[in-house]
């Protein structure tokens, strides 16, 4: 099996990379291990923020459908239910769809494998119905099953805040949201929304224990002092039947490690991040990264990074004229820059710049 560009992961970054390259006439195959493309877009039922060109005001679920239509329109080959089990020397991929195992030879690869949520361990954390927040979000928004009725959310980043809102929306009672830091860490617009619903956001609080016979029935929460130590006597037991852990994400970078890409530890972006240049090309020529695997951000910037990688791959395939590519790259970078502004953007911009700087130091 052969293709010019293989995109791994059909989430927002991967789909945008495929569309951009296919538009330029590149022969693109996009692979996803799931039954449906779209990655985590289909659980994002809230409206996106930002400027119009970032599809602000459109819900993630609608963006997903738009991207799928485009991918189809430009002739992207979509392989679903297909696992990439290895990224080997000479840009060979091991793929399998459960029935057959194949080697796919390709000239360019965009790794857009996304992220997974980080767990948090405390006594009892393995009990059923203690899950990462995205899992509860998938269950309720995609699968339409409410996993619990009385919910504690751990972590006040955007994921925690949005999931608190969406679980309430679907009929659950969110008892509280605990945050170990002294202030809410997600966007204020999300925080205000859940505060208006009367959901208490307990800053400087943590979960210390979970109990239950066959699933979580009770949790203990406690207040933290300025050194992050539990204040004795502040422990309170609360009856719940669902705990959602929202303590951040980590890149799903296994294929990047296997390929032998160079990494750098960038805690602001979720951990070890594959180094890449301005146009998302990594330390191995022909391999690009885009989206959360290249540093945890959100869907809007993942899409722009995907476009960048798609354009860069088109250039490497000789499928687009230099002038047009330069213009496209410039426009994409400008949009990316505007997504990384302000309180919630500057640190990401700086971390991203660091990745590029470290790449050029290699």
């Amino acid at each position, binding site marked *: 099996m052969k293709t010019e560009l293989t995109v791994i992961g059909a989430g927002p970054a991967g789909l945008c990379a495929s569309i951009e390259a296919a538009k330029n006439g590149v022969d693109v195959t996009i692979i996803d291990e799931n039954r449906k493309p779209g990655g985590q877009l289909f659980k994002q039922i809230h409206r996106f923020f930002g400027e119009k060109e970032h599809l602000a005001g459109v819900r993630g679920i609608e963006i997903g459908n738009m991207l799928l239509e485009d991918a189809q329109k430009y002739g992207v080959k979509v392989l679903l239910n297909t696992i990439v089990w290895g990224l080997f020397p000479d840009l060979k991929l091991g793929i399998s769809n459960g029935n057959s195992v194949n080697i796919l030879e390709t000239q360019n690869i965009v790794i857009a494998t996304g992220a*997974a949520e980080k767990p948090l361990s405390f006594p009892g954390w393995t009990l059923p119905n203690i899950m*990462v927040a995205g899992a509860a979000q998938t269950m309720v928004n995609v699968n339409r*099953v*409410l996993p619990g009725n009385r919910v504690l959310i751990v972590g006040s980043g955007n994921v925690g805040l949005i999931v608190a809102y969406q679980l309430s929306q679907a009929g659950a009672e969110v008892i509280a949201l605990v945050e170990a830091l002294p202030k809410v860490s997600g966007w204020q617009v999300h925080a205000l929304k859940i505060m208006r619903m009367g959901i208490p956001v307990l800053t400087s609080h943590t979960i210390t224990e979970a109990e239950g016979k066959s699933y979580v029935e009770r949790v203990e929460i406690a207040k933290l002092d300025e050194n992050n130590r539990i204040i004795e006597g502040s422990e309170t037991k609360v009856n719940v039947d669902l705990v959602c852990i929202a303590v951040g994400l980590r890149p799903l970078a296994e294929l990047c490690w296997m390929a032998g890409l160079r990494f750098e530890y960038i805690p602001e972006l979720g951990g070890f991040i594959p180094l890449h240049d301005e146009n998302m090309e990594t330390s191995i020529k022909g391999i690009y990264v885009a989206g959360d695997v290249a540093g945890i951000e959100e869907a809007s910037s993942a899409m722009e990074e995907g476009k960048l990688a798609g354009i860069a791959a088109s250039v490497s395939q000789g499928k687009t004229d230099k002038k047009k590519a330069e213009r496209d790259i410039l426009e994409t970078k400008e949009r990316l820059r505007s997504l990384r502004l302000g309180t919630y953007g500057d640190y990401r911009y700086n971390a991203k710049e660091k990745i590029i700087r470290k790449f050029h130091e290699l």
Partner: protein
Amino acid sequence: MRVYDHPILGKLPDRKEITILVDGKKIKAYEDETIATAILASGIKTLRYTSEKHEPRGIFCAIGQCTDCVMEVNGQPNVRTCITPVEENMVIATQQGLGTWRKVSSKKK
């Protein structure tokens, strides 16, 4: 509990109802949904027990990454139920430890 009516997503679309067997019990499911979805909707939260301490485990990531939700499906252990769709008359069992493999004999020492 199924969310039949959602303020943003609207009413649950009509889907074909099918039956699956979980530990010998008949459970209602809808075509094209995942095993974990149907089982959770029926109120079951424990999908397996760990091999050494026999502790219960349930859904954790729901996107096929953590493997906490594995069960025995049609005699095959370690099936990720959060990403595997149901099929009519599928036989599903709560996985005990490493599960029971059809082809691998498990004579104890």
